[in-house]
């Protein structure tokens, strides 16, 4: 790092309104060369809007963006790219059927140029990947790579374009703790070479590790700017939320009878996502089981098996000890299995249906809501109103299309829909992903209440903190294989991380330590 600080980026009084909502309210920040700042904030705090303005995806209502002193024309993505701004998105933007090299060089060559300097490009990529320890073969097809490798390709892609400012949007969400450490080593190297980094995250310990300074956004405004050395995780959390949040207290419980059991179930691979390999899992009364693992390692298959969307190619599903017959989502719901789906926008709700229509989505065939094929809208509306009231769903009314609700309120409606049936088994797949802390605590408390009245719960999450906070028993899933059961407090995050990376399955880590 040089002694004279060069300002790489300066955002000056950026304001952006969407109708009545002010997404960014006079937000200013600056970033120097060779520095990493963390942009911290709950969902809906305005982080994404700010980055979209920087990239020219949105035009700010007022305020200016300067990159190395040059003012960027508003609403021009091309200018931002040319000025050396790069971004690694949370959802990768790679073409599966192309090689690593092709993905990296895509768009850097003119379509009209006759020859391509393929050998030169390859040498450059190899040089970069050696320099920053981003091990990945230029000839490998991206479709065959792991998530961690794909992220390396994304970073290489940015470095190849000589970015001077790199934005990373929740880069660790898909990584194991070990992969995260590797990523941080790479980033530190790049920072020492003068790269300026904006690190978007809500994981406080990572922010404390990688960033020099933290900028906290709350409700579109800057809630605080601090140097890492002058702050603590607790102080940051308070700044982010405005209040101190207390995570739910979890008392121990005594598990009861087995309600749902997967017995040596296997499923087929889907694309490059592995199917299950002889997975056995028992959900018991009054117990929360947490399923940890990096996304795409078979969690979806477990969720589909329990939720009735899939049938195993071998093995059995037992409901209270009896092998199930004719397994469909409808029968699963009828058997008292409540399902909180992973994607509340695409699978949990129908965007253009109103709250009432969404509330009865899983129950419309029951005698409460229909007789002989005719819906009882009066009862349906009463049901929806009851959920809105009891679960504090903030909405303009039950006749509003659900797409107008925030993620948290949408999730509360789904929660109400499944819990009102007094389910015996609850499958909660990423129940709090993308929710703000208030909604997270609410959802977690509802799940704990359900456990305390005797429900068997399976929580699938990529957030190890969430798993460790709530679960009575933890399983780790990796490449379709399920680890043994670990009791609460038995494992450290690092040990679980090793299992997540798949090493425990080959006997490198003993069950208990």
């Amino acid at each position: 790092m040089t002694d004279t600080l060069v300002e790489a980026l300066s955002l000056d009084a950026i304001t952006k309104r969407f109708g009545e909502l002010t997404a960014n309210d006079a937000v200013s920040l600056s970033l120097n060369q060779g520095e990493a700042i963390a942009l911290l904030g709950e969902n809906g705090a305005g982080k994404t809007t700010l980055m979209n303005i920087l990239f020219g995806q949105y035009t700010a209502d007022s305020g200016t963006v300067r990159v190395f002193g040059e003012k960027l024309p508003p609403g021009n993505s091309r200018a931002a790219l040319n000025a050396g701004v790069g971004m690694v998105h949370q959802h990768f933007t790679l073409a599966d059927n192309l090689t690593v090299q092709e993905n990296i060089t895509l768009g850097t060559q003119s379509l009209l140029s006759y020859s391509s300097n393929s050998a030169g490009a390859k040498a450059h990529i190899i040089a970069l990947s050696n320099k920053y320890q981003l091990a990945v073969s230029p000839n490998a097809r991206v479709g065959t790579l792991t998530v961690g490798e794909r992220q390396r390709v994304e970073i290489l892609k940015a470095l190849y374009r000589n970015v001077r400012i790199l934005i990373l949007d929740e880069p660790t969400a898909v990584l194991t703790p070990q992969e995260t450490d590797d990523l941080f080593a790479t980033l530190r190297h790049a920072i020492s070479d003068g790269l300026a980094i904006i690190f978007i995250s809500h994981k406080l310990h990572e922010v404390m590790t990688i960033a020099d300074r933290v900028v906290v956004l709350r409700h579109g405004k800057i809630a605080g700017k601090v140097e890492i050395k002058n702050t603590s995780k607790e102080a940051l959390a308070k700044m982010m939320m405005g209040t101190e949040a207390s995570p739910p207290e979890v008392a121990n419980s005594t598990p009861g009878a087995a309600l749902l059991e997967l017995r040596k179930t296997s499923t087929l691979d889907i694309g490059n996502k592995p199917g299950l390999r002889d997975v056995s899992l028992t959900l018991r009364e009054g117990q929360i089981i947490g399923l940890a693992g990096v996304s795409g390692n078979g969690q979806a298959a477990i969720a589909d098996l329990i939720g009735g969307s899939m049938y195993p190619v071998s093995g059995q599903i037992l409901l209270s000890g009896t092998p199930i017959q004719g397994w469909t989502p409808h029968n699963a719901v009828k058997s008292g299995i409540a399902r909180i789906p992973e994607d509340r926008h695409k699978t949990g709700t129908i965007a253009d249906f109103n709250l009432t229509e969404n509330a009865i989505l899983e129950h419309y065939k029951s005698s409460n809501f229909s007789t002989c094929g005719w819906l009882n809208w009066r009862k349906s509306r009463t049901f929806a109103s009851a959920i809105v009231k009891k679960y504090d769903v903030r909405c303009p009314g039950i006749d509003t299309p659900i797409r107008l609700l925030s993620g948290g309120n949408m999730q509360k409606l789904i929660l109400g829909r499944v819990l009102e049936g007094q389910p015996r088994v609850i499958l909660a797949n990423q129940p709090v992903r993308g929710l703000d802390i208030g909604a997270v605590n609410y959802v977690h408390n509802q799940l704990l209440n359900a456990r305390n009245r005797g429900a068997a719960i399976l929580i699938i999450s990529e957030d190890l903190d969430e798993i460790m906070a709530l679960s009575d028993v933890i399983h780790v899933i990796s490449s379709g294989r399920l680890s043994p059961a670990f009791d609460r407090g038995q494992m450290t995050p690092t040990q679980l991380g090793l299992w997540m990376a798949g090493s425990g399955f080959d006997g490198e880590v003993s069950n208990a330590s």
Partner: protein
Amino acid sequence: MVRFQMRLEPINNPNIARKSVPPAIALLTTILITSVLAMLAGANPFSVFGLILEGAFGSQFALLETLNRATPLIFTGLAVAVAFRAKFWNIGAEAQLYAGALITVLLGIGILQWPAAILLPFIIVASIIAGAILLLVPALLKTRFGVDEVVTTLLFNFIFLLFVSMLLEGPLKDPMGMGWPKSARLIPEARLPRLFEGLRLHWGFGLAIFSSIIVWVIQTKSTLGYEMRAVGLNKKAAAFAGISVNLVLIKTALISGGLAALAGFSEVAGLKGSLTLDLSPGFGYTGIIVAMLALLNPLGVVVAALFVAGIFVGADSMSRAAGVPTYLADIMLAVALLLMVLAIMLTRFRVIRD
């Protein structure tokens, strides 16, 4: 270089103006564009539109003609609206229409010597089943093998029309028809009676109105309608919630095919009395326009069908009086449809220029 970039931003709570202004502008622009064409054809645009209105609704005769023309369009419009609501793209209403017409002729030319009170309901049910079965094939191909129903239903139109043509040239050919490819006439018991004594309007129109009400009730009040809308809006969420998407698509296809077949029944039994190859001047395809203009609303289909029928009937008489080709009606409908589709999008999205 002129840079022109634009984006669409969804509008969360469109107000009344947002919902009504774009369609109104679309309608005005349609009139404007057709006026220019009318002028190019050497006519006064004001008199052209006046003549169209008069020709469509200006007299009892004109009005009844319009209602008669609207009848098959209501049926095919409903067929398309029902299918499109579930995102089942039935482009084959034309074939299903001929299936209904064919069954009507097969059962109505004297094989069954039953009184009208029994024969007519029997033919209606048989027509519905014929249309339903014809659309069941593409529906099964789609749900079983993933074959695109746009292609299959579209191609079925040609196959079925040629099949009917073959029958009319062969076994179904009227022996008294002096060589024309035309079926024998229906027996009187198989003819739909007039709606009012002495007026040239048959019970097919009543059946069409009744059907649109039934379809509306099914869509808004029944679990099947709820399932159809859910499947149309989000297949994934519908399947997750326990709706059998394939079963719903098949039921949708059966209803849609049945409705389109009623158009054929009503044209043969109510109006023509026999089957010829020019029974339908593309009612099946025009049904798509009707359904789109009605925003797939079953009650709106009646209004849209009257609008479209009015333009056709009005243009016929306008053409005779003003010497402007009747093709003006086709252009008017095409422009109206395109602009209306655009207008509907503009009621939901705001255009942002970067």
